[in-house]
C-alpha cells in the first residue's frame, strides 16, 4: 500500500454498487473494517483464501463490503459456521466479525467453545456496548448504569470482562484497542491472524445513533473523543488502582500463547492415527485446484 491515487483499501472493497455502505454517518464500524483490511494487506494474504464470516447486526454487515469469500450467517452463530469452514478448509484464513451482542449474548456459547478448542479463527468483536442494528437495546457489554432502550432505568447487569472470559475459555490471543487507535487495532488484528488458534480482538467502537443518543454522549466526533480520553494502555492501567481503571477502555495485548496447537493441528494427529491424513490433504488440494 504505497503511494497511490486510490484509497488504500480500495482493492479489498466491493465498490461497484455496495457503497456508500449502510452504516450511519460517522459509525465506527467502517474504521474497524479499514483496520482489518490493512492487517490482511500487510500480511499479503491471497484474497481468494480469506473468508470473512459474520452473524447479524450492524457489525455483521461488514462482509458485504469486503472483497473476500464472505458469509453473513444467523445471529450469534458466526463462530459455529466458521468452525465448519475452518475445519473443512484448513488452507484458508478464517476471520469472523461480530458485534458485542452477536458474539457475547446469543453467541456466547460458540465463543467460549471456539476458544476452548483453540479453533483456527481470528474473531474481531466490534464492541459498541449496545445493540446497534435493532435500535439500542442493552448488551452484555453495556456498562452498569448506562441506559439502553431496554434498560430505561439504567443497566443493572454487569458487563462481561471480555478479556478474562476469552482467556479463561482458552483463547490463544486476546487484545483490545479502539477505532480511534486504528493503527494499534490493525496491528492487533495482524498478530491475531498470525497466531495459530483462536485469536480475539476486541475493537471498542461507538454507536452514537443509539448508545450515544440514549446516554447523551453526543455524535460520532464526540464519542470518538470520549473513547479516546477514556482509554488507557494496559501498561498505564497496571500502575493505577483497579477502581480507577474499571470504567476505562484498557488497550493492549492481554494474552498471547503461540505454543498451543490449533484444533486442526491436533486433528491431523487423529487423521494420521486413523490412516486418513493423506486422503485429507488430497481432498483439500482437490477442492482448491478443481
Amino acid at each position, binding site marked *: 500500500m*504505497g*503511494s*497511490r*491515487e*486510490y*484509497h*488504500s*483499501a*480500495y482493492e479489498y*472493497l466491493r465498490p461497484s454498487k455496495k*457503497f*456508500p*455502505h449502510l*452504516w*450511519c*454517518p*460517522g*459509525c*465506527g*464500524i*467502517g*474504521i474497524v473494517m*479499514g*483496520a482489518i483490511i*490493512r492487517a490482511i494487506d500487510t500480511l499479503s494474504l491471497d484474497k481468494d483464501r480469506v473468508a470473512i464470516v459474520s452473524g447479524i447486526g450492524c457489525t455483521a454487515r461488514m462482509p458485504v463490503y469486503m472483497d473476500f469469500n464472505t458469509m453473513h450467517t444467523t445471529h450469534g452463530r458466526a463462530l459455529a459456521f466458521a468452525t465448519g469452514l475452518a475445519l473443512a478448509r484448513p488452507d484458508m484464513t478464517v476471520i469472523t466479525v461480530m458485534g458485542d451482542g452477536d458474539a457475547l449474548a446469543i453467541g456466547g456459547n460458540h465463543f467460549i467453545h471456539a476458544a476452548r478448542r483453540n479453533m483456527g479463527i481470528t474473531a474481531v468483536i466490534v464492541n459498541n456496548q449496545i445493540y446497534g442494528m435493532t435500535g439500542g437495546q442493552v448488551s452484555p457489554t453495556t456498562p452498569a448504569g448506562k441506559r439502553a432502550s431496554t434498560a430505561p432505568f439504567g443497566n443493572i447487569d454487569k458487563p462481561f470482562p471480555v478479556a478474562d472470559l476469552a482467556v479463561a475459555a482458552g483463547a490463544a490471543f486476546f487484545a483490545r484497542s479502539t*477505532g*480511534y487507535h*486504528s*493503527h494499534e487495532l490493525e496491528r492487533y488484528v495482524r498478530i491475531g491472524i498470525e497466531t495459530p488458534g483462536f485469536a480475539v480482538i476486541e475493537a471498542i467502537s461507538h454507536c452514537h445513533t443509539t448508545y450515544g443518543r440514549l446516554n447523551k454522549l453526543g*455524535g*460520532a*466526533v464526540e464519542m*470518538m*473523543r470520549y473513547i*479516546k480520553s477514556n482509554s488507557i494502555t494496559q501498561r498505564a492501567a497496571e500502575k493505577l488502582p483497579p477502581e480507577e481503571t474499571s470504567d476505562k477502555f484498557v488497550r493492549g495485548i492481554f494474552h498471547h500463547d503461540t505454543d498451543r496447537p490449533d484444533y486442526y493441528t491436533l486433528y491431523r494427529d487423529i487423521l494420521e492415527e486413523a490412516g486418513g491424513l493423506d486422503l485429507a490433504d488430497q481432498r483439500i488440494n482437490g477442492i482448491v485446484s478443481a
Partner: protein
Amino acid sequence: MTKDQQEDSHNKAPERTRLPKGRVIVYGKWCKECGICVAFCPRDVLGTASDGSIVVVKPEECTACRWCELHCPDFAIVVKKLDTESD
C-alpha cells in the same frame, strides 16, 4: 471544541514548511459528512462547507499523515503523498 490533535502527541506531525506533503481528495459520493476527518485532522486541513460537504481548507498544512484516510468510516478520503522521493 478543544483541539484533540494537540493533546494527542502520537498523531502530531512534525513541523514542516508551508509546502503541502499530501494531496487530500474527498470522494463526495461516499462521504457522509460525519465530520470525523475535520475534527481530528492534526493540521485543520479540512473544513465543512455551508452545504455540509467536506472541503480542503488549508491544503498547504497537510503532512500526509493519513490519519483522515485511516479513520474515515466511509473510505471516502484519500491522501496522496506529494514528496519527491519515489516509492
